[in-house]
Structures are given as structure tokens and as C-alpha cells.
């Protein structure tokens, strides 16, 4: 169904659309929405499992999970690593989910970017904040670059893309401050020459960006598998307690 042809365009609320789709008895809804909290609201209204594929600036759990899997496979563990998340933190739900996940798994997380794109409130997440990229990358195991989210910016957050690349774009010189075996990540899509140098992105000895894509499929399969299993288990529990089909709440 294309959005343009759906009832949303005719004024139907998100909840009404969800309830309509819910009446089709799906096992799983995968939802991406520009408003933070919209997916959570929707999950309260439907009977099936709901997977958040990104809501506003809030969370993007499967991206963080695929990043975690990529790191675990590349570094052999997912704890006690120094990880720098660099760039447009302010507009990034990917950064927020990664900060939460990497913190839960007992890693040391640094945020690197200009003050306009790394709001002071992020220090409350238990991370270290740097506005000098060379200092922020010193001895890190993982360099996670983020895209400049122009579509979410409503003001002048950077002087120019050229100036931004000069100070915060990942190039060989800045990467040399990280550990020699540090890996480079990017959730895509990349803006080459803005947040990352093309040669770094393509360096098969450092970049795991293509692996992230592969892990993305596997992580989403695993997430859907687990959610559907839990949903089926709940349905069977409900059936076992009912006297006849059709008496389910």
C-alpha cells in the first residue's frame, strides 16, 4: 500500500489505521514514523507484536543491534571497548539507541562533534563528550560515523559542509589517532566528503560498513523471529485458557 493511496492521506488517524490493519490479524507490525513515541502509542492499541523501525529522534533499535553484532563479530566481544560515536548526535535516533545498548553492555562511549550537534544533555547518558575529533578518537576500538541529518535540521548547525568535513569528517589523519586495529562504521547512507572520506569508507582493512548491511538482514530476521515466537506463545496461552474458539479477548 502506498502512503498516497492510504486512508492516512484522507485524514484517518494513525491509531485508526493501525486498528484497521490490526483487524487483519497480522502477527507483526513493522513501523517507521517521523514522530517520537508514535510507535509506542501504536503498540498499545494493537494485539500483534510491534517492531520499531525508527521513530523520530527517539530510537532505532534494530540499527543499534546490527551495529552491536557487527562489533561483536569484528572485535570478538561486546564489552570493555572504547567506542566513539561521531557527528550529528543531536538529530540521530541511531546514536541514542547505540548509546543505550553499548552502555548496557559495559562499554566506554565517547560522543564527538560540534557543540551544536552534541547537546549538553547527552552527558547524562554516562558518556564522554569531545568537540575535538583527534582527541575524541584517541585509542578508540570503534569509530562510528553518523550522517548529517539535513532533513531534521531547522537552522544553521554547521558553517558549511566543507568546514564540517575539515573538522569532523573522518579522514586518514584523524583515524590515525584511533587504535591501529580500530574499525570504522557508518549506518548509511553515507555522504562521502562530508562526514567520511571515500577512501576510508572503502578500506576493507578498516571499514565494516558492508558487514553492517549484511548484519542488518540477520538482526531483523532474529528480531522478527523472537517477537513472533513470543506473540504465538501468548496466543496459545490465551487459547488454552478459553473454552472455545472465538472467546478470546
Amino acid at each position, binding site marked *: *500500500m*502506498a*502512503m498516497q493511496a*492510504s486512508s*492516512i492521506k484522507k485524514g484517518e488517524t494513525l491509531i485508526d489505521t493501525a486498528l484497521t*490493519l490490526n483487524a*487483519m*490479524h497480522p*502477527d*507483526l507490525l*513493522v*513501523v*517507521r*514514523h*517521523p514522530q517520537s513515541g508514535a*510507535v*509506542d502509542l501504536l*503498540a498499545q492499541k494493537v494485539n500483534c*507484536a510491534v*517492531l*520499531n*523501525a*525508527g521513530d523520530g529522534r527517539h*530510537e532505532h*533499535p*534494530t540499527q*543499534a*543491534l*546490527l551495529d*552491536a*553484532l557487527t562489533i561483536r563479530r569484528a572485535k570478538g566481544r*561486546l564489552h570493555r571497548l572504547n567506542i566513539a560515536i561521531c557527528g550529528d548526535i543531536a538529530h540521530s535516533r541511531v546514536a541514542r*539507541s547505540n548509546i*543505550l545498548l553499548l552502555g*548496557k*553492555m559495559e562499554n566506554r562511549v565517547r560522543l564527538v562533534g560540534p557543540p551544536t550537534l552534541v547537546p549538553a544533555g547527552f552527558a547524562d547518558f554516562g558518556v564522554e563528550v569531545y568537540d575535538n575529533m583527534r582527541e575524541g578518537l584517541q585509542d578508540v576500538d570503534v569509530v562510528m560515523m553518523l*550522517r548529517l541529518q539535513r*532533513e531534521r535540521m531547522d537552522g544553521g548547525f554547521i558553517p558549511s559542509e566543507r568546514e564540517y568535513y575539515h573538522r569532523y569528517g573522518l579522514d586518514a589523519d584523524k583515524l590515525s589517532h584511533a587504535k591501529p586495529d580500530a574499525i570504522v562504521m557508518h549506518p*548509511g*547512507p*553515507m555522504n*562521502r566528503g562530508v562526514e567520511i572520506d571515500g577512501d576510508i569508507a572503502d578500506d576493507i582493512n578498516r571499514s565494516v560498513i558492508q558487514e553492517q548491511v*549484511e*548484519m*542488518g*538482514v*540477520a*538482526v*531483523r*530476521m*532474529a528480531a*522478527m*523471529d*523472537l*517477537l*513472533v*515466537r*513470543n*506473540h504465538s506463545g*501468548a496466543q496459545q496461552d490465551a487459547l488454552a485458557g478459553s473454552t472455545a474458539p472465538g472467546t478470546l479477548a
Partner: protein
Amino acid sequence: MTFTQRHLLGIEPLHPTEITTLLDLADDYVRLNREKRHGDALAGRTQINMFFENSDSHPGQFRTGLQTPWRGCDEHGDAGLVDQKGRDPD
């Protein structure tokens, strides 16, 4: 196996053991995918994708994750082009 969540709405509600469970299962799926084999854990299920925002590869990845045994995947939304985010055209 430890994963008790009914929904996956964010990382915040997940316990570290649930994260590990999901990653371990994802590792199994990596192996299956590389062997071009398919599990049947999701056979006969119905999924609806609702994308109300421009996206890059994610709708495709959720669809790829479905595999053939699924009953169906209904697409509802507005999955836009990567190029609108500024990536070089492939």
C-alpha cells in the same frame, strides 16, 4: 533462550541477556543466509510494514528477512529514496 519482550520498541527496555540472545540468534541467521538456506520459524505468519518516513535500505531488509515461507507482507507507507538523503546514486 531469554527474550521476554512482546514488542521491540527500543533498546531501553532490553536486559543485556536479551540483547545477547537476539545477537546469538542473528549469528545463526548470518550462517543460514551465507549458506543460502532458510529456516521455517516464520512460516505462515503475516507481517505489515508501515513506513511513514523516507527510508534507505530498511524496508527491503525487513522484507528480505521475511523469506518465502511467510504468508504475506503488506507494505503500507511512504518509503522514499536514499538519494533524498544525499547518497551518491548507485
